[in-house]
C-alpha cells in the first residue's frame, strides 16, 4: 500500500457502449480508476449510473468497448473468454445481492463449486470448503440446503464460496441489499475481518450509506462518469469491529 506501488486495479479512460436495438447506451464514459492492493472501496451512485457495469468490468465478466483495464500484471482488455474465466477462477471472488447459490446443492457443495473448475482434488475441496464455512461462522451447517438457511447465512455461504480459490480481490455487488439491518452489520463486519485475516482487496457496490461507512474510500458514479473519489475515515462502528 506504499505510495508509488503499482495499483492492483488500473482502469484508463474506459468506455462501455451497448446497443439496445437502435438506442446507443453509454454505460461508462471515460472512467479512470486505480485501486491499490488491500484497499476497501465503496462504489456508490444511482441506478443506471454505471457502477454495476464498472463492477462487471473489474470482475472480468465483461470487456471495455474502449480504454484499458489492467488487473495486476494482466491486460484484461486483450484476454480471451477462457483467459478471463481463469482469472475469475483464481484471483476474483464474487458476492451478489441475491446470493446466487445453487438451490439444489448443499452449503458445502456451493462453496466447493469454484474449486471444481480450478481442478482441486475432491478431498481437498471438501476440506477447504469445511474450513471456509467455519471461517464465516457456519460451522456444522455443511449439509444444509440454501432454503434451510436465513438470508444472512446464505450470504455467508456465498462469501465462503467467493474465497474458495484464495482470491486476492473480493467484489460485492449490493451484498446487503436483501438483508435486514442486523444481518447487514454482521456481513460487513465479516468483510472487515476477512480483509484483515486474508489481506483482501474489497470493492463493494452499494447505495446504502451505512455500508459505505465501513470503507476507506468512496467512489461516486453519475451518468457513466466518476464524479467524486474521496478517502474517508471508517465509521466508529467499523473501527470497533476491526478492534474486536
Amino acid at each position, binding site marked *: 500500500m506504499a505510495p508509488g506501488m503499482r495499483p492492483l486495479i488500473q482502469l484508463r479512460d474506459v468506455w462501455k457502449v451497448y446497443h439496445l436495438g437502435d438506442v446507443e447506451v453509454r454505460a461508462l464514459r471515460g472512467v479512470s480508476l486505480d485501486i491499490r492492493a488491500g484497499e476497501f472501496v465503496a462504489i456508490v451512485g444511482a441506478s443506471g449510473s454505471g457502477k454495476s457495469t464498472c463492477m*462487471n468490468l473489474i*470482475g472480468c*465478466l*465483461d470487456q471495455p468497448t474502449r480504454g484499458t483495464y489492467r488487473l495486476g500484471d494482466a491486460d484484461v482488455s486483450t484476454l480471451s*473468454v*477462457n483467459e478471463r*474465466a*481463469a482469472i*475469475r*477462477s*483464481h484471483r476474483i471472488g*464474487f458476492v*451478489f445481492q441475491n446470493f*446466487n*447459490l*445453487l438451490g*439444489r446443492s448443499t452449503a458445502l457443495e456451493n462453496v466447493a*463449486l*469454484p474449486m*471444481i*473448475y*480450478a*481442478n482441486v*482434488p*475432491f478431498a481437498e475441496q471438501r476440506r477447504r470448503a469445511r474450513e471456509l464455512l467455519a471461517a464465516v461462522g457456519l460451522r456444522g451447517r455443511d449439509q444444509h440446503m440454501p432454503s434451510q438457511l436465513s438470508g444472512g447465512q446464505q450470504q455467508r455461504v456465498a462469501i465462503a*464460496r467467493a474465497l*474458495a*480459490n484464495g482470491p486476492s480481490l473480493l467484489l460485492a455487488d449490493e451484498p446487503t441489499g436483501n438483508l435486514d439491518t442486523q444481518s447487514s452489520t454482521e456481513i460487513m463486519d465479516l468483510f472487515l475481518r476477512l480483509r484483515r485475516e486474508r489481506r483482501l482487496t474489497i470493492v463493494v457496490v452499494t447505495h446504502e450509506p451505512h455500508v459505505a461507512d465501513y470503507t476507506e474510500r468512496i467512489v461516486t458514479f453519475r451518468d457513466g462518469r466518476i464524479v467524486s473519489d474521496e478517502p474517508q475515515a471508517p465509521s466508529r462502528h467499523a473501527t470497533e469491529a476491526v478492534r474486536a
Partner: protein
Amino acid sequence: MNLLWMTVVTALRALRRNVLRSALTMLGVIIGVAAVLTMVSIGRGANAAVQREIQSLGNNLVMIIPGATTANGVHSGSGSAASLTVADATAITKECPAVTDVAWAKRQVVQVVYGNQNWATAAQGVAPSYLSVRDWRVGAGRFFDQQEDAGAKPVAVLGQTVVDQLFAAGEDPIGAIIRLKNVPFEVIGVLARKGQTAWGQDQDDVVLIPFLTAERRVLGTQILGTVDMVVVTAATADALPKVERQIRTLLRERHRIPPGQDDDFTVRDLNEIAEASKNASEVMMNLLLSVASVSLLVGGIGIMNIMLVSVTERTREIGVRLAVGARTEHILLQFLVEATALSLVGGAAGLVVGIGATRLIAHLAAWPTLLSAPAAAGAFLVAGAVGIFFGFYPARRAARLDPIAALRYE
C-alpha cells in the same frame, strides 16, 4: 477426471430432479432402441428359419420338370407335357459330370385309406435314390431298395403328416396295410419330419412308393417311363450353374430341339428360390429397421427440446458457474453429459424393453426370434450418439451465454 466425474454426478442429479420429465424425454429413445432390437431379433429369426429350410430341401438341388403343352391353342402350364423320361434321368447321370446324384418322381394326389380313416395326399413314385438326393432320412422302419423298385412291390413309406392323420396316437404304422386307389400296400417305413418349405408347403404330407409300382399299379401312365420331375444334386453350390448348363444342353440334344426354339422342360435351382425368399425377408427387416430408426431420431429431437428448456430454466445457474470460473467447455460438457445420460439411460431401458418384447413375440406369435448382442450394443451406442448429436446445440447455447445477462436472468 475429477471434473468429468463431478459433471456426471451433477448431470444425473439434474435428471433425477425431474423424474417424470426425464422419463418422458427418454421415451422416444426407449421405444426406438426397443424397436430396433426387436426388429433385428425377428429378422434374424426369420433368416435363420429360411436357412434351415434351405437345408431341409437337400443340399444344392436342381429340379427339372417337363415343359408346358399346347393343344389347340390352350397352354396347360408347366409340367403338363410328358416330355421328361426315366431315360433322360439316367442320361443325366452318365453325361453330366458335375451331377453327383439323380432321382426321379411321378406324383398324383390320391386318397389313402387305412381302416376307417382316409386322407388325400400326394402319392409319389420315386427312384430309391430319392431319399439321399433330398437329404431325407427314415425315422422308423426302412426305405425300399432297388429290388423292390424293379419288382414293383406294393410297399410304402409314409410322411409324418400322413401317419398323424391315419393312425391313432401311439399306434405303430410299420407293417400296417394301407390302400392307395384300392391297391393294398404294406407300410415299411416312416420318414423323419422335414417341416414346411419356405413357401409354406408341408413336405411331410406325402406317401412314397417305388417308381415302377406307381407307374404300373397305381398312378397309371399314357407313355411308359415319363416322369413328373427329375431331381439332381451338385457337389457344391458353386457347381450349380454348371450343372444347369450341362443338363440344358443334354436335354435339348436328346429332345431334338433346334436352336432358337424354347426348351420343353424347366430347370430350377432350388437354392435360388430359397435365396429369393431370404432376400425378401431381409428387405422386410430393413424396412422395419428404418421405421424403428425414425423413432430413435424423434427421441433425439425430444432430448434436444427438453435440453433447450433446461438451459433456459438454468440460465442463472449457468451465470453463477461462469462467474466462479467455469470455462465455456465446462458448461458445454455439463449439458452434453446430461443429454448423453438421458439417451444412454433411455437406451438401457430400451434394451430391457426390447428383450422383453422379443420374448413376448416369440411366445405369443410363435415367430422365430434370435436376439443379437451386436445389434443390442449397436442400438445402445446409436442412442448415445443421438444424445451427443442432439445435445450439442443446446449445450453450445448454454456455453455461449453472456455471464452478466445470465446472472440477471429472472
